[in-house]
């Protein structure tokens, strides 16, 4: 069931504010610049837009008001009646009607003036039309001033009404003023209603909530009712009557036995009789409040009889005192139980129940044999329960021991250990040995496994696995090894020598260099050959005469003419020169020519390479001194 929430109604502006709002909005949101020389359709469109915009704003706002305010026919009759009581149904409907009419009138005005604007032929005419339209709309709203004010007040009051759910479990408190209804609700719920000695402290309905049997209950506190006919009742009392009439609740009729409220018991009984028709179909409890002042038993006989008649009629009477809280809970439980029962009854009588009942089925297990199966309670639980009742002294705790010993106390948890031999409790247990965890080796079977291992080990030793083998090397092998070692060393030396040579660039072939006799002979002696007496070996260099003689012996004449010419050709450095003097001079000249080349570091005549194309001293810096003829 949706809670009636009247807090979401939009604010109803006053007439003046409404007009200001809409007009300023029109000015802000529509274009403002227009000139005489614009095309006429543009001018017309401009002003038509303004008129339509204003109309739309008014229309929207008014429609919103109309939809937000609740329609008295559509809401729960309790609220409809309450609103009637508070705001007068006719007035309310009238106000809303007026608003509706205003809305329609505004629409018509706008339509008319837009039609007229089509025939406007100048800026001035269109502007006047717009002014007229807007003016008329604002006048309409001005005339609605009263309605708008009224609706705003209604809205404010509505939003402050307590949210009473008419369909849920409710307890209704009623009775004369000052009997203790508000005190009761304060006691039972978390509501904080004003309690004062004067009558009509509570002027409207108040709601409090409480929990009972895991359900939420509403408790409604009403203003006090006086005893006069319905027509004479004022608004405040009417609220209470409305609540009584429409809410399906358990009624708690509060009576003041001590007559401190200012009304006699008889008056209260009379009131009860008068409003009894309102209690039809509602569980009723008569609450005799303020019993701490006067109890029913202390009353005179006739008064007591009244209560007996009540009991006879079937209404339970309960004595309470909100001051001492006596009987309050009793009232509450009884009221709630009776209401629940009543509600269940009503539901059972209704139509929807059958659908639900058809689907429910309570399964009872059938007995399979006659064995009695009692609930099982373990011994420990029974013992504990007994102990709790008897309150025997508990066993001595560590805490008690600590308090006893004071400073000497040492926490010794080892005494609680449960070992095979209790004498071993205070042993220092080793954990690590040589990088191994002892816990990893712990095994009850360890001795057996160790024996097996030892046996295996013996077998292996017997098989000779662990004997170290003798060095089975004969002399020949040792000789070979020694030689191999020497060979390797020699190789390394050769590699080192070749690394030390440090040749870079093109290398001369080995045959270009002449091998020296001493080196050769040394090498060969190292290798074991006999190099003595090798003076006439073929590799020894002889003087020229010997070679020449040899040559001449072998061949007398040159083999070709080319060869002979070559021997008679003059050498290049003396060709074309007459005598010795000239040769000397030429030599000097050649050297002189070479000097420049050497100085410039040139490889030859054709070497034109410039090492420094852009010398810094010429190209950088300011033009301080020097010429700029060339760079």
């Amino acid at each position, binding site marked *: 069931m949706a809670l009636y929430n009247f807090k979401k109604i939009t604010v109803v502006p006053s007439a003046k504010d409404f007009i200001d709002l809409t007009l300023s909005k029109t000015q802000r949101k529509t274009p403002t610049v227009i000139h005489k020389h614009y095309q006429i359709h543009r001018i017309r469109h401009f002003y038509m837009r303004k008129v339509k915009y204003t109309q739309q704003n008014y229309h929207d706002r008014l429609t919103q008001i109309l939809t937000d305010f609740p329609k008295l026919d559509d809401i729960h009759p309790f609220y409809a009646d309450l609103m009637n009581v508070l705001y007068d149904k006719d007035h309310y409907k009238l106000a809303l009607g007026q608003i509706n009419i205003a809305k329609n009138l505004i629409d018509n005005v706008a339509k008319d003036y837009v039609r007229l604007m089509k025939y406007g032929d100048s800026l001035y005419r269109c502007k006047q039309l717009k002014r007229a339209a807007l003016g008329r709309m604002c006048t309409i709203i001005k005339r609605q001033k009263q309605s708008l004010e009224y609706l705003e007040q209604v809205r404010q009051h509505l939003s402050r009404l307590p949210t009473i759910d008419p369909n849920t479990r409710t307890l209704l408190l009623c009775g004369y003023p000052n009997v203790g209804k508000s005190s009761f609700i304060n006691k039972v719920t978390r509501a904080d209603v004003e309690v004062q000695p004067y009558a009509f402290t509570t002027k409207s309905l108040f709601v409090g909530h409480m929990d009972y049997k895991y359900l939420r209950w509403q408790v409604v506190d009403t203003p006090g009712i006086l005893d006069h006919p319905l027509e004479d009742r004022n608004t405040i009392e009417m609220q209470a009557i409305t609540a009584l009439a429409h809410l399906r609740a358990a009624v708690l009729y509060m009576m003041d036995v001590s007559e401190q409220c200012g009304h006699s018991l008889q008056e209260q009984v009379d009131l009860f009789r008068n409003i009894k028709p309102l209690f039809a179909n509602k569980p009723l409890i008569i609450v005799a409040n303020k019993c701490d002042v006067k109890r029913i038993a202390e009353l005179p006989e006739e008064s007591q009889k009244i209560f007996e008649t009540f009991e006879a009629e079937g209404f339970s009477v309960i004595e309470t005192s909100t001051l001492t809280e006596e009987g309050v809970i009793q009232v509450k439980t009884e009221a709630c139980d009776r209401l629940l029962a009543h509600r269940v009854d009503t539901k059972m009588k209704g139509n929807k129940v059958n659908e639900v009942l058809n689907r429910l089925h309570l399964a009872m297990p059938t007995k399979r044999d006659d064995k009695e199966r009692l609930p099982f309670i373990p011994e420990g639980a029974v013992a504990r329960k007994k102990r709790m009742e008897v309150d025997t002294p508990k066993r001595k705790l560590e805490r008690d021991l600590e308090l006893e010993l004071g400073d000497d106390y040492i926490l010794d948890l080892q005494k609680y250990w*449960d070992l095979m031999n209790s004498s071993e409790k205070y*042993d220092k247990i080793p954990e690590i040995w040589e990088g191994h965890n002892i*816990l*990893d080796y712990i095994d009850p079977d360890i001795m057996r496994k*160790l024996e097996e291992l030892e046996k295996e080990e013996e077998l292996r030793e017997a098989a000779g696995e662990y004997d170290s083998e003798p060095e089975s090397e004969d002399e020949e092998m040792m000789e070979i090894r020694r030689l*191999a070692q020497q060979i390797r060393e020699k190789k390394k030396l050769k590699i080192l020598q070749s690394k030390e040579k440090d040749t870079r660039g093109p290398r001369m072939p080995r045959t270009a260099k002449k091998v020296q006799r001493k080196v050769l002979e040394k090498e060969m002696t190292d290798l074991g050959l006999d190099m003595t007496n090798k003076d006439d070996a073929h590799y020894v260099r002889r003087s020229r005469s010997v070679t020449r003689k040899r040559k001449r012996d072998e061949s007398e004449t040159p083999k070709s003419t080319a060869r002979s010419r070559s021997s008679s050709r003059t050498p290049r450095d003396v060709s074309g020169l007459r005598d010795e003097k000239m040769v000397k001079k030429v030599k000097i000249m050649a050297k002189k020519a070479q000097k420049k080349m050497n100085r410039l570091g040139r490889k030859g005549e054709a070497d034109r390479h410039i090492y420094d194309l852009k010398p810094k001293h010429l190209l950088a810096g300011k033009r301080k001194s020097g010429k700029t003829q060339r760079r």
Partner: protein
Amino acid sequence: MRIEKCYFCSGPIYPGHGVMFVRNDCKIFRFCKSKCHRNFKKKRNPRKMRWTKAFRKASGKELTVDNSFEFEKRRNEPVKYQRELWNKTVDAMKRVEEIKQKRQARYIMNRLKKSKELQKAEDIKEVKQNIHLLRAPHAGTPKQLEDKMVQKLQEDVAMEEDS
């Protein structure tokens, strides 16, 4: 207090050393030093890092299966303390350790023996191929030949004289 094993190098982690890393799937990795930790973070496989025990066992450089390894096993059910059991265990541990070391050493020695054969063969080859670096092949042969010839002549002369 336990001595744990490093996940990467399988070395011992004494209390107060190393780093423990817990992954999102609740697997715990312990490292003895930052070297192992950093290698792990680089996602290197310990079975391929030559200095780890995992590599050595995976590539057969060390003894893997043996009865003496069955003694050291992490047990999940704790045994209540009994003095003689603990004493016996400590003695057994010492003996088992001895045997384990012996067997491991033997295994490694056997592995290394093979290289000796190979080295022998290499020496012989070396000498055969490169003996010319030390000695000329026919170093003393002329002299030998000469001596032989001289001897032969002498013998011939002797024979002639005889006959």
